[in-house]
């Protein structure tokens, strides 16, 4: 087990290294002089010289990368062009908001997905299977930003039950777990949960169908025996994979929250990314992407290790 964890870590480090290079290169693939990408257009000569020194734009790329990496590892993600505030501080606040949303969406998606998937797999071939499978394929096919709009139309515009946007009356700054605030979370979280719901349901259905087709179980069921026992067996065998899928989905939701957060003006990392793009705020863009991608890399590692612990037979390649 320990050697497996060590092996996975050894595999993850170069990937993380590569990810940081890709993020670093974002400033350099932007059209034009990289200096103008990290400076306001009317920057004084003094500021220009300062930034040139900080980023070392006159030095060879590997050296620039080294300097940048060193600062990043110390938690310094640079300064936002648009606001002059450190990127790291903006990012941490936004990350909390997005985590809240993504975790809730993953939980909703997982619960519903398991339910639909299990029903479909258990009653394979029946009309229940077809219905549940249809719901899950909708989950993976629907443009979720559009679904968000439709939910807003129904529940905010027409019925006026739930707020359309924002993170509550006081913004996320004075977030509290009371109804006044939580009702702002409902529509975005539900919208966000459809993709994990669909994917988890499809995975669980396949798993359950597979397990149930094992001879041992077929025998048990033929005898009309032990539905509870069969259930336990299915859960035990399907859980590791289902949990792994859920973990990865959390990562995808964190990284892909931009569309949902744009629709709902949710003050998270995706919203921040959107602003960074239209303010041409490359340090902010770079920092946000880096942190989200690293989060995903770390999550991948954790999922692998946990999955192996639960079920040592599975070692994902």
């Amino acid at each position, binding site marked *: 087990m320990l050697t497996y964890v060590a092996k996975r870590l050894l595999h993850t480090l170069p990937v993380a290294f590569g990810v940081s290079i890709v993020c670093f290169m974002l400033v350099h693939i932007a059209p034009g*002089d990289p200096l103008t990408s990290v400076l306001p257009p009317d920057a004084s000569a003094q500021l220009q010289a300062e930034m040139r020194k900080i980023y070392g734009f006159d030095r060879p790329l590997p050296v620039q990368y080294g300097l940048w990496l060193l600062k990043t590892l110390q938690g310094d993600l640079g300064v936002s062009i648009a606001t002059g505030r450190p990127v790291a501080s903006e990012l941490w*606040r936004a990350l909390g908001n997005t985590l809240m949303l993504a975790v809730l969406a993953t939980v909703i998606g997982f619960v519903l997905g398991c339910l639909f998937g299990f029903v479909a797999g258990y009653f394979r071939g029946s009309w229940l299977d077809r219905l549940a499978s249809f719901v899950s394929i909708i989950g993976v096919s629907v443009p979720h930003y559009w679904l968000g709009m439709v939910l807003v139309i129904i529940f905010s515009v027409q019925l006026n039950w739930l707020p359309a946007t*924002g993170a509550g009356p006081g913004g996320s700054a004075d977030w509290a777990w009371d109804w006044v605030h939580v009702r702002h979370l409902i529509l975005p979280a539900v919208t966000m949960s459809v993709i994990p719901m669909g994917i988890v349901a499809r995975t669980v259905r396949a798993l359950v169908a597979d397990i149930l087709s094992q001879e041992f179980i077929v025998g048990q069921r033929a005898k009309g025996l032990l539905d509870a026992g069969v259930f336990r067996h299915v859960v035990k065998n399907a859980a590791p994979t289902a949990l792994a899928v859920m973990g990865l989905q959390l990562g995808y939701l964190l990284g892909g929250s931009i569309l949902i957060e744009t629709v709902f*003006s949710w003050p998270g990392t995706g919203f921040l990314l959107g602003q960074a793009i*239209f303010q041409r705020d490359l340090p902010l863009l770079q920092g946000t992407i880096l942190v989200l991608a690293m989060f995903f890399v770390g999550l991948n590692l954790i999922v692998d290790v946990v999955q192996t612990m639960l079920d040592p037979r599975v070692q994902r390649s």
Partner: protein
Amino acid sequence: MRIINLGAVALLASLGFCQPSLAQGVLRIGMTASDIPLTTGQPDQGGEGQRFMGLTVYDALVHWDLTRADRPSTLIPGLAASWTVDANDKTKWTFKIRDGVKFHDGSVLTAEAVVWNLDKLLKTDAPQFDQRQASQGRSRIPAVGSYRAVDALTLEIVTRAPDATLPYQLAWIGISSPAQWEKLGRNWQEFAKTPSGTGPWKLTGFTPRERAELVPNKDYWDTTRIPRLDRMVLIPLPEPNARVAALRSGQVDWIEAPAPDAVPSLKGAGIQVITNAYPHNWTWHLSSAEGSPWNDVRVRKAANLAIDREGLKELLGGLMIPAEGFMPPGHQWFGKPSFKLKRDLAEARKLLAEAGYGPAKPFQTKILISPSGSGQMQPLPMNEYIQQNLAEAGMKIDFEVVEWNTLINIWRAGARHESSRGATGMNYSYFIQDPFTGFMRHLQCNLQPPAGTNWGHYCNADMDKLFNEVRNTFDAAAQSKVLERIHEKYVDDALFLMVTHDVNARALSPKVRGFVQAQNWFQDFGTITMSP
């Protein structure tokens, strides 16, 4: 008679005159900006930033009179109690600083503090020089040459050349507290978190991109302007829909620039939608840089003739005044331009053909636009409509969309700067209140970036001569005559794509009482109360 009396009482009550001593509630405002404007004294985010984070927390030497809704605002003394120009040397101005004014941190305002503030913007090697504020403030005061504190309450400013518009320019400059800056370790980042000015509001805290909270400055020097509210909360809501939704669900009490499509439903829900004329225009600022197709007057005229301004008014639910010139129709400087801004597609096509464009050489160019912003009205559908109008005349337009604050930065950088990405025009909405903001800063030769905001690098000897005449004419009536000639040249040479003027629409919940909407970009929030 009785009914009329009751009406008057109700009116007075609604203006807040009858209940000055009650607790007056919290006003939450949804702004169009996407972030809290810079809080250090010289806000970003254009006119809206100045409205909410400039003239609330800070005072300028010169103020706008915002007490009247029925006439254009005029200048009144602010932190300067009075000012004079030297009769012999028209470049030398003396400002008497108001006595006994205190910053929010308790320190006292002096002429030295004002000098310190001008250094903050203009003197790059001063310790308090702040790049971010300088970016915002420098181009507002191009006339200022040198300055000194004569004594504790006397400030002298010498302009580069005689310039009658100096007071208008100074009305933009907020005075921040040197003592607070010293106390916070000479650090503007720290100052931004706990700023200190002399204004009627104090900033008690803010979360970037989310909200800012202001409370009344009970010791404000002008006691008539001490705010009645308990608190004012500013919330950035750049999306028109998000603003409407927030207002309707009671998350905010006031929104700037409601989406015109939502106005009927807002009115139906009992929301007050108020409008008023103000010195604003919404144009495409055209580039005169080398290679710009707009260097040909025929092309500029063709574009102006292609715009269907009545159709645009339809798009905006009537919430606009179609442009007849650069200044709003009926303005005292309008003059008698001979070029009429009407829709005439045939003439537009003819002009375009004369300029050499046609099927063999189609007209195509790139324009910078923003999705939302101070005074920008509804930029995306409006620009798309104009794009359609111009396409009908045979002009193909590509858009480059950037966030409003970024557009402002590009505007300062100039059409030749890399950040303009080769665009030959930008959609900009202008504050056109005085000769300087109305005319000079856009087209004066020596105000080309980076010296000023002549974004398009326009340079014309006749125009510069007219501008000089304005600066040297200290008699108002005679000055007005020159300004008319300038405006005639603006229109007859079709120097901008002149599209429309905004009507300053804002939507207020029925609870908001006592607001007087001045004919100005800026407003006074002091008179407002909230009914329970």
